[in-house]
C-alpha cells in the first residue's frame, strides 16, 4: 500500500519537474521512487508463508533485511478494510512489474533522443499504469479490480496515442480505447451479476458461496451467477489478449510508439495474468467451477490464432504482437489446469516472457529507428554490423521460442508439466489433445522466431552500424543476463511462490 503512495508522489514529482523544465531530474526521481516502492513492498514479505521449499532462494536475505514486521506474526497485510491484500503473490508480481518498468525507463532515452517536451508526461503516465497494475494483482475486492484495470487502461489509451503526429499512433489509441471500454463494460456487468447472485464482492466471500452451494445437494448455480463469471472472464481475457478477444493487440502494438509497446507487452501482460490468476485461484476456487472448460477452449483457440497469424507477418512488431497472443495461449494452458503450483509457474512464465519482450522490442526500437521500417528486411545484415544487438535479439528470440538454456525453456517446461500433472490426475482425455496441440504450436512458434534470427544473420546490406548509448546497452545486457540466469536457476523465481499459503487464504 505504501508502494502505491510512493509511486503516486513520484508521479506528481515528475509532473512538476516537467512543468519547471527540469528534465535531468526526471530519471533519478523515477528510479528513486521505483526503488523505494520496491523496498517497501519487499518489506511486507511474509516469511512465515514462505517456509519449506522456498527457504533457499537468493531473495531470502533481501526479504529478511527489509523485513519490517515481527518475524513470527502471521498477519495478513490487508488495507482499506480488506479490499486490498499485499500477500506474497501480490508482492512478487508487483516487484516484477516494477523491475520491468525500470528497464523500460532505462532504454527510454534511446527512443526520445531528439525531442520533446512531453517526456515527463509520458513517464508520469507510465507510472500511473504501473499503479493500476499493482492494484490489479493485489485486489481482494472486485471494485478494486475494476478501479485497477481502469487506472491502467486509461493511462495506456493516452500512451498509445502519445506520438501525436503519427496517424497510426492515433488510430491505435482510438481502437484501444473503444475496444477497451467495451471490455470494461463487460467486466463491470459481470461484477454486478456476481454481486447480484452472491451478495459478495470480496473474493473469499465468492469462494465460500461457491463452496457452500456445491456442498448443498441438488443446488444449481443461478444463471445470473454463471453469466457474471463469464463476463468477468471476458473482461480479463481481453487484457491478456487471448483469442477471440485479441483483435486489438496487433494494431495497437504496431501503432503505438515502440517504447509504449515494450511496456504494454511486458508490464501490462504481467498485471493481466496476475489479475486473472488471482480471481481464478481465490474466488473461483482453483477453477473447480465452470471456468476451466472456458479456459480450455480459449487456450486452444489462442494458441492457434496467435501462432498461425504470427507466421504470416511482414512486420516484426506485429509478429511480436501475435507472439504475445500465442504466449498468452501457453499461460492459459496452465490456467486451464490450475492447481496449487500454478501461481509459481505462471509468475515464472510471465516474468520471463516480459523480459524477452523488453529485449526484443528494445532492439527492434533502435533498428527500426535507423531503417524507418518495422519489416523483417530491416534486420538484414545486423549480425555483421552490430554483433551485440544481434546477440541480444537472438537471446530474446530463443527465450520466447522456449529453447534452453534461456529462461523461456523452463517457462514452457513448467506449463507442460502443470498440464501433464493435471492430465495424469484427472484422466480427462480431452487434455491429452490440448497438450499435443500445444506442442505443435510450440514448433510453429519456433519457426517465426528463428525467422528473425535468420533475417539478422543473412543478406548483408550496406548500412551504417547503429550507435547506442551506454545506459541502453547496460540495461539490455542486464535483461539478457537475467534471462540466461533464470534459465539456469529457475528455482530462484519459482520457489518463493511454491507454497499453498501465498494468498493467505483463511482455512475453510
Amino acid at each position, binding site marked *: 500500500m505504501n508502494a502505491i503512495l510512493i509511486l503516486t508522489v513520484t508521479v506528481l514529482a515528475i509532473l512538476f519537474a516537467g512543468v519547471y523544465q527540469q528534465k535531468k531530474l526526471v530519471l533519478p526521481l523515477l528510479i528513486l521512487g521505483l526503488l523505494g516502492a520496491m523496498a517497501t513492498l519487499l518489506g511486507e514479505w511474509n516469511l512465515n508463508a514462505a517456509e519449506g521449499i522456498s527457504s533457499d532462494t537468493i531473495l531470502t536475505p533481501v526479504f529478511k533485511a527489509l523485513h519490517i514486521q515481527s518475524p513470527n506474526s502471521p498477519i495478513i497485510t490487508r488495507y482499506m478494510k480488506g479490499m486490498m491484500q499485499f500477500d506474497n503473490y501480490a508482492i512478487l508480481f508487483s516487484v516484477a512489474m516494477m523491475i520491468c518498468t525500470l528497464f523500460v525507463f532505462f532504454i527510454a532515452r534511446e527512443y526520445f533522443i531528439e525531442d520533446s517536451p512531453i517526456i515527463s508526461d509520458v513517464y508520469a503516465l507510465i507510472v500511473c499504469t504501473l499503479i493500476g497494475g499493482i492494484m490489479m494483482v493485489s485486489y481482494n475486492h472486485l471494485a478494486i479490480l475494476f478501479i485497477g484495470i481502469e487506472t491502467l487502461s486509461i493511462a495506456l489509451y493516452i500512451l498509445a496515442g502519445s506520438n501525436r503526429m503519427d496517424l497510426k499512433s492515433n488510430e491505435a489509441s482510438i481502437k484501444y480505447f473503444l475496444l477497451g471500454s467495451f471490455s470494461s463494460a463487460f467486466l463491470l456487468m459481470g461484477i454486478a451479476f456476481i454481486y447480484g447472485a452472491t451478495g459478495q464482492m470480496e473474493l473469499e466471500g465468492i469462494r465460500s458461496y461457491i463452496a457452500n452451494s456445491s456442498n448443498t445437494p441438488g443446488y444449481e448455480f443461478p444463471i445470473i451467477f454463471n453469466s457474471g463469471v463469464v463476463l468477468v472472464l471476458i473482461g480479463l481475457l481481453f487484457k491478456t489478449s487471448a483469442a477471440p478477444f485479441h483483435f486489438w493487440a496487433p494494431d495497437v502494438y504496431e501503432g503505438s510508439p515502440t517504447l509504449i509497446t515494450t511496456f504494454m507487452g511486458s508490464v501490462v501482460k504481467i498485471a493481466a495474468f496476475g489479475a486473472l490468476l488471482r480471481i481464478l485461484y481465490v474466488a473461483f476456487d482453483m477453477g473447480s467451477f465452470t471456468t476451466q472448460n472456458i479456459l480450455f477452449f480459449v487456450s486452444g483457440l489462442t494458441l492457434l490464432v496467435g501462432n498461425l497469424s504470427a507466421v504470416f507477418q511482414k512486420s516484426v512488431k506485429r509478429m511480436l504482437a501475435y507472439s504475445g497472443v500465442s504466449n498468452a495461449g501457453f499461460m492459459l494452458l496452465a490456467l486451464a489446469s490450475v492447481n496449487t503450483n500454478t501461481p509459481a509457474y505462471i509468475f515464472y512464465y510471465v516474468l520471463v516472457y516480459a523480459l524477452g519482450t523488453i529485449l526484443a522490442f528494445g532492439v527492434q526500437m533502435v533498428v527500426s529507428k535507423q531503417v524507418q521500417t518495422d519489416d523483417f528486411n530491416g534486420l538484414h545484415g545486423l549480425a555483421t554490423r552490430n554483433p551485440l544487438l544481434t546477440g541480444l535479439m537472438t537471446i530474446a528470440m530463443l527465450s520466447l521460442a522456449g529453447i534452453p538454456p534461456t529462461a523461456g525453456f523452463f517457462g514452457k517446461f513448467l506449463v507442460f508439466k502443470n498440464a*501433464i500433472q493435471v492430465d495424469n490426475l484427472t484422466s480427462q482425455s480431452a487434455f491429452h489433445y490440448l497438450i499435443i496441440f500445444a506442442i505443435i504450436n*510450440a514448433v510453429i512458434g519456433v519457426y517465426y522466431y*528463428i525467422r528473425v534470427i535468420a533475417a539478422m544473420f543473412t543478406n548483408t546490406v550496406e548500412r551504417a552500424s547503429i550507435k547506442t548509448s551506454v545506459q541502453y546497452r547496460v540495461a539490455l545486457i542486464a535483461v539478457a543476463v537475467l534471462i540466461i540466469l533464470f534459465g539456469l536457476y529457475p528455482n530462484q523465481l519459482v520457489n518463493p511462490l511454491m507454497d499453498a499459503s501465498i494468498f493467505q487464504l483463511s482455512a475453510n
Partner: protein
Amino acid sequence: MYQLDQYITLFLILLPLSGAVLSAIVPGKLSKIVALLISVIALAGTFHALNHFDFKEVNPQFAFSQPWLQFTNSRFSVGMDGLSLLMVLLTNLLMPFIFLSSFTTVRATNRPKLFYSLALLFQAALIGVFTASDLLVYYIFWELALIPIYLIILYYGDNSNRIKITYKFFLYTLIGSLIMLIAIIDMMMSGGIGSNYERQCWLFFAFFIAFAIKMPIFPFHTWQANTYTFSPSQGSMMLGGIMLKMGIYSAIRWLHFFPDVIANYSTIIITLCVIGIVYGAWIAMSQDTLKRLFAYSSLSHVGLIAAGVFTFSNIGLQGANIQMISHGINIVGLFMVAQIIHSRTQTLRLSELGGIIHKAPWFAAAFLILLLGSIALPLTNGFVGEFMLLKAVWDFNHMLGAIAGVTVIFSAIYMLRAFQLTMLGTATEHTNNFTDLKLTEGIVLYGLVALVIFIGVCPNSVLNYSAASISNLVSQMNNSVTYVK
C-alpha cells in the same frame, strides 16, 4: 583416484564454455589460437580421464552431482562410464582437427570470433549430452547443441538457399526434441517408465523419433543431404563427425530401458535401418557433387551403426561404439578433402575434376587411406566396426544381415568412383594449378590418417573402455524382459 578427479567431467564441460566466452572477447586474430588451445587442453583432460579410468566399474566415474531443481527433484549430475568416455574422446579428439582445418578457409575468416565462439559452445553442449546422467540435464544440453550449429550453417553456409535449408534442419530436429521433452516430463511426473506396456510404447517412440531424426534413420533423413552440402566444411564436420553420434549414443543410453518394446519392434526398426543403408549407398553412387556423395555415404554408414545398436546385443553395441569413432574420424577427413579441393578449384563436381594425383601426390595418398578406412578395408579403422556390426545384424536376422553385407560392396563402388574421378585421369582446367598440402592441412589429414591406421591395428585400445558398461547394459536388458507379445 585423486580428489580432483571427480571434477574432470565438469571441467570438460566448463572449459569449452569459458573458451566460448574468451574467444568472443579477445581480438579477432587471437580467437583461433584461443579456440585451438582450449580444444587441445580439453583433449589433454580427456587423456587424463582415460588414464585414470577404472575398466571394471560400470557406474559413471568422475561423477559430479549437485541438487538443482526442487520442483522436479532434478540434480545436476554428470559423469562418464565407458560409453560416455568414448564419445567424449571422439568429440575432444576431433575438435582440434576441426579448428586446425578452419585456419586455411576463407569464409571462416570473416567474423572469426563468432565462428570459434559458437564452435566451442557446440563442443561444451556435446560433452554435456554425452556425460549427463539426469534426463533433464541431458535434454538441455541436447537442445543447446542445436543453436550454435544452426547459426554456423546460417552465417557461414555458402548457398542462397541456406535459409530454407536451415529452417528445415532446425524445425525438423526440434519437433523430435519437443516430443521427447513431453515424454521426459511425463516420466518425471509419474516416477519413471512404469510397468504398463502401452505407456512404455509411447515413451519409447517419443524418444525414438527424436533420436531417429538426429541420426538420421530412413525415413527421417530428408533434412540431411542439403544441410551437409551447403554447410561450411567445418559445419559439415561437426554435424557428420560428432553431432549425429548424439542420436546413436542416446539410443544406446536411454532406449535400453525399454527391453519389452525393443523385443517387439526391433525387426521393424532394423529393417528401416537396412533400408537406409541400401538407399544411402544407392543414391551416393549417382551423385555428382563430392559433398553430397559424402552425405549419402554417411546416411548409409549410420544406417548400419543404427542397425547394430537396435539388435542390442553385446557385439552390436561394441561394434557401434568403435564404428562411431571410426566414422567420425573418416568423415571429418573426407570433408577436409572436399574443403581442400573446393578451396583450390572452386568446384566439387566430379565431372569437372580429375588428375589431382599428378599434381598433389601427398594429398591423394591421404585421401586414399581415409577412403579405404571408410570402405572398411582390413587394418583400417572401418573394418573392425563394420565386421562386428554385420555379425550382429546377421545373428539377428540372416536376411537383413545379407542385404546389409552386400552394401559394403556398394560403398566400395561409390567411394572408388569418387577417387577415380577426382584424382586419376587427366587434369582438367580446374585442377591444372592444383598445389599440394599446406602445413596445417597436412597436419590435419595425416593426423587423421594415423588415427585410421592406429584404430585399425589395435581396436582393443578403444573397445576395452566400453566393454564393461556394454556387457552390463546387455545383461540388464536380458534380465528385465518381462513381456513379449
